[in-house]
């Protein structure tokens, strides 16, 4: 945990909130700046990343749009985007807000936040590509990392393709 509260043992909720928001912000900036190679490092070694839809979640259906288990799979995704998959040049702009943080135990917190992802094509075409919620479990060791990040998209529709992670 980032800092100790005045009493000495319990973490200070304010610093916890800041630390989580800082993690979310660094994550968003890395993706938006095309620093895909940094993306796996926001996760723990066995951290999981799953994109799904609110509809599948509500129906209790397990289908992911994208799923990775551990940094190796996250790195595979990046390698494939860099060297195998073909997609038109595009960038995202992440807007992350309404961050809720709740302590789970002494080293872990859960967090829920809202996101908007705007997709900008090379010709300037700009689209509200995705909206939804991040539902996270974050571990604090040296620095906070996602042990689990679930990206729940509000819509079941995806325009053309989803290459860059959300």
């Amino acid at each position, binding site marked *: 945990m980032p800092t100790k509260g005045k009493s000495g043992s319990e973490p200070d909720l304010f610093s916890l909130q800041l630390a989580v928001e800082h993690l979310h912000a660094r994550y968003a900036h890395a993706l938006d700046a095309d620093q895909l190679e940094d993306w796996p490092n926001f996760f723990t070694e066995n951290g999981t990343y799953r994109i799904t839809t609110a509809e*599948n979640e509500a129906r209790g259906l397990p289908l992911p*749009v*994208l799923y990775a288990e551990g940094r190796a799979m996250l790195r*595979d995704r990046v390698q494939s985007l860099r*060297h*195998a998959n073909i997609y038109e040049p595009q960038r995202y702009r992440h807007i992350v807000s309404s961050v809720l943080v709740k302590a789970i135990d002494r080293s872990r917190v859960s967090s829920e936040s809202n996101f908007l992802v705007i997709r900008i094509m090379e010709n300037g075409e700009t689209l509200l590509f995705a909206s939804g919620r991040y539902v996270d479990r974050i571990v604090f060791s040296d620095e906070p990392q996602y042990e689990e990040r679930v990206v729940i998209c509000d819509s079941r*529709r995806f325009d*053309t*393709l*989803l290459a860059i992670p959300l």
Partner: protein
Amino acid sequence: MLERSWPAEGLTRVPYWVYQDVDLYREEQRRIFHGPTWNYLCLEAEIAEPQSFVTTFVGEMPVVVTRDAAGALHAFENRCAHRGALICMQSRGKAERFSCIYHNWTYDHAGNLTSVAFRKGIAGKGGMPADAKPETQAPKKLRVESVHGLVFGTLSKEVSSLESYIGPEILPRIKRVMIKPPRLLGSYTQVLPNNWKLYMDNVKDTYHASLLHVFFTRFRINRLTQEGGVFVSPDGAHHCTYTKMIEDRGDAYEKDGMRSASSQKFQLEAPELLEQVDELGDGVSIQILSLFPGFVLHQIRNSLAARQVVPKGIDRTELHWTLFGFVDDDEPMTRRRLMQANLVGPAGYISMEDGAATGFVQRGVAASPDRASVIEMGGSGVGSGDSRITETAVRGLWKAWRKYMDV
């Protein structure tokens, strides 16, 4: 009706106006989607319980698909006889009856109009004349049949049974996949920036897979040098292509200097994502099957899915993906299917490019309705064979389309 004429070369040329003409698009709705074709509606598993329903589309027509209290399947146009409003707003659920929210006209599971609110008025005032016949504007009913758990509907009274429509070349390849009752894993929609036929054309194009989808080839999942083949129905309408699991250790791609050639520096750190169990017992790793006009069934390793192609205008198509396993899947198999969901859909390692490539065609041909595609891989015929370096199934699509459209 169409003033367009097809190029003299025949099926080896597909003129670009087929993806652009608004009048033609309207005519396709009438002649193809609402004509003598069977259109995919849903999995039976999605309406497993009595009185359950889903809403979907046949071409642009909104449709309600139901299972009645006695277990029979029905489908009817989602349009109230009164003013034409949607009868059913929800995408799925269970209902004892369907009531249009606008004026509360009510329908049963077969789409029969069962009551008109205040039909006889109140206290002798108002209401409809005794000889009124609102049923004359009732929603259209579809014939419904299912094959191996896949539900199809047609507005046509003339078209033959679903099984004979599919035919003996392709039907066994559906049965091959649907060996047990399916269990739904989930669904999503990919919106494609192109005409619906460009997607069907892409699905039937066995030549592109290992050239566009580099992931395939780099990991030797699918190379044209691997054993495989293609089946095409005699009318060209339906197709099925398959690839065997045997590893290709050759270097045909490397010798030809293909973009998709294998690179030593690019290897999966977590190849378990691709591990396949030969659950169908025939050593086939990939089978892609299409039925005219807009249905695709895929087996990619242990990923199974139905894809429904829904036209939304000349340059917009919705692709509804429904991924499934089987009811008796154990935990490792479900996990495998969910892992391999990474291969398909909008974020699919091997399918994300399809939306982009077909969109590129839509954009590329914008100013050239007078020009045509060159479709001569494998000659000019339409038929089955053991090579996938062919565009025989693509020519099949156009052979069938021209027959329906009388072009």
